[in-house]
């Protein structure tokens, strides 16, 4: 009875086209943002920031990027780890070599590097799709692994490829504390999520979805597949690159190429599949799920096992994690290919009727 569209008539197209046409949704979002910006800082412990919130924010950002490419434009990508790496090392190089470069500028430049890399390795998408495109993106992944390990220039001549940054600040405010890091990531995420949402509900988003659904018909109405696919790669890798730079600078502090291995690529893909392909909100769900699941399992499984008197090692928990991931991927693909976002939409539909049965 609370979630009703009754009486919410739109008299302009602008009102009908807005991101959240239903007033209750808008209120919910504002409350959530207020909560995230103003309440959470007082409620969360350092551990919560470090282990849950900051990874969640950064992965949500990366998942939005991957979703644009895989979910909206239908181009499968197993190379997201490489784009994160290019973003991270790109930002690093600018940050370290140009004295006094503001952090935000470095992050954006890292994103630009990732974007160029993404366009380059997105070129095969003009010729092939599906599995073959997946192979092309894997080429990007392994090439990037090698590039940052072996080409000394990228890592400021560090022999092992590992680098670090410190003393980060933004507008004079230090980013050492977990709270500051959290707020910074939250702000970046909010801005980029809004921009991304505008893109996907605009003309270019429709182009992407047209290419995904039927590229021959898209060409006939005047959509150029090349432009659509390459912009998808560009925008996606920019966002993933910025996320990679954030991951490196803010979360890790010190990193090496292995932090952006092919496992990271798979993780991002899983976030998008589980969260919901072709849905910005789904990216958040997917990221939350992937971040929370290991923590949940490592608390829950030993407790469950001790009920039956078995001891579970951490190795077993990580094996269980693999099984749960794999099993859930398969389950979602069979039962609800549109992921958690679809389940959420169904729940909202039911909520509109509540408490009435029909």
């Amino acid at each position, binding site marked *: 009875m609370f979630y009703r569209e009754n009486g919410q008539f739109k008299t*302009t*197209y602008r009102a009908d086209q807005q991101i959240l046409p239903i007033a209750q949704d808008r209120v919910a979002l504002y409350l959530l943002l207020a909560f995230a910006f103003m309440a959470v800082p007082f409620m969360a412990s350092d551990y919560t920031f470090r282990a849950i919130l900051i990874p969640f924010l950064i992965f949500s950002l990366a998942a939005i990027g991957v979703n644009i490419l895989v979910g909206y434009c239908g181009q499968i990508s197993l190379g997201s780890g490489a784009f994160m790496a290019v973003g991270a090392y790109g930002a690093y190089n600018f940050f370290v070599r140009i004295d006094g470069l503001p952090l935000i500028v470095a992050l954006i430049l890292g994103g630009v590097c990732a974007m160029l890399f993404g366009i380059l390795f997105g070129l095969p998408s003009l010729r092939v799709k599906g599995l073959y495109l997946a192979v092309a993106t894997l080429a990007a992944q392994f090439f990037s692994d090698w590039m940052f390990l072996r080409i000394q220039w990228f890592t400021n001549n560090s022999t092992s490829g590992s680098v670090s940054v410190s003393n980060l600040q933004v507008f004079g405010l230090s980013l050492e504390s977990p709270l500051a890091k959290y707020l910074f990531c939250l702000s970046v995420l909010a801005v980029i999520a809004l921009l991304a949402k505008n893109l996907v509900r605009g*003309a270019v988003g429709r*182009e992407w*979805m*047209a290419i995904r*659904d039927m590229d021959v018909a898209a*060409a*006939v109405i*005047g959509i150029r597949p090349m432009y659509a696919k390459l912009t998808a790669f560009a925008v996606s890798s920019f966002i993933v690159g910025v996320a990679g730079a954030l991951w490196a600078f803010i979360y890790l502090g010190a990193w090496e190429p292995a932090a952006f291995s092919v496992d990271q690529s798979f993780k991002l893909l899983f976030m998008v599949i589980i969260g919901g392909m072709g849905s910005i909100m789904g990216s958040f769900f997917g990221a939350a799920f992937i971040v929370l699941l290991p923590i949940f399992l490592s608390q829950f499984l030993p407790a469950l096992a001790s009920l039956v008197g078995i001891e579970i090692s951490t190795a077993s928990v990580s094996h269980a994690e693999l099984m749960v991931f794999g099993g859930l991927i398969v389950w979602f693909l069979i039962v609800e290919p549109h992921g958690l976002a679809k389940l959420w939409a169904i729940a909202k539909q039911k909520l509109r009727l509540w408490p009435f049965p029909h």
Partner: protein
Amino acid sequence: MSITNGAGPSQDESASMGGSELHGVKSVGANKHIGDVILDVKNISLSFGGVKALTDISFNVREHEVRSIIGPNGAGKSSMLNCINGVYKPQQGSITFRGQTFGHMDSHQVAVMGIGRTFQNLALFKGMSVIDNIMTGRNLKIKSNLLMQALRIGPAQREEEFHREKVEHIIDFLEIQAFRKTPVGQLPYGLQKRVDLGRALAMEPQVLLLDEPMAGMNVEEKQDMCRFVLDVNQEFGTTIVLIEHDMGVVMDISDRVVVLDYGKKIGDGTPDEVRNNEEVISAYLGTSH
């Protein structure tokens, strides 16, 4: 049944051509003014590996007319449209549109030149709503770049609203208002065909290639579709090239007809001429016993 006045995409041509009130399937269009040749297909030959789909096909289409292409299944009708559209590239022959001649067409170029298309097997974007599907037809006319769209302020927002209004006119014209937010995959076949037409109309095309727009429809649905096609032709002057199997429709609404059989042209002329053509009768129309 009357159509909402003034609905539909605006055109450079002046509106008000011929009658828009329709009873049954009979066309009126007495005031229609058929122009010069706008599309000229010369000696088109197309083969796939060893299969010859089209052999030396030549015909022309005049501006503002309704030109039908008929023939048995497998005659090459869809392939012909695909050649005009740039989906297939013929091995021989040329296509001339408004004075420009091409050996083969490029899909994008064709769209820019103002040739729109519907598909026999419905190439709709199943994941998007009706509004979004038809909005994709407006794509060529949207000018804001990526950054403007991301920020969605000022010109970009106004552009979205402008095109949304155009799309709403098309939705009114095709009487699918109730389904505008539904994902097209969930719509029944007849409505999907209307969305396909709407998407092509959104391009504001000069020439509209319709590939069996009435296939699989019952009598009422066919009447509706005919009404739409004729309205587009008569009110907005759009040249129509139509593939259709229903002889009643073809003979009633066409100005001229091309008949294909096994990839060859066996008839070309007005409906009456074609109806009395021996070859066409034996190949396709059949005689009554």
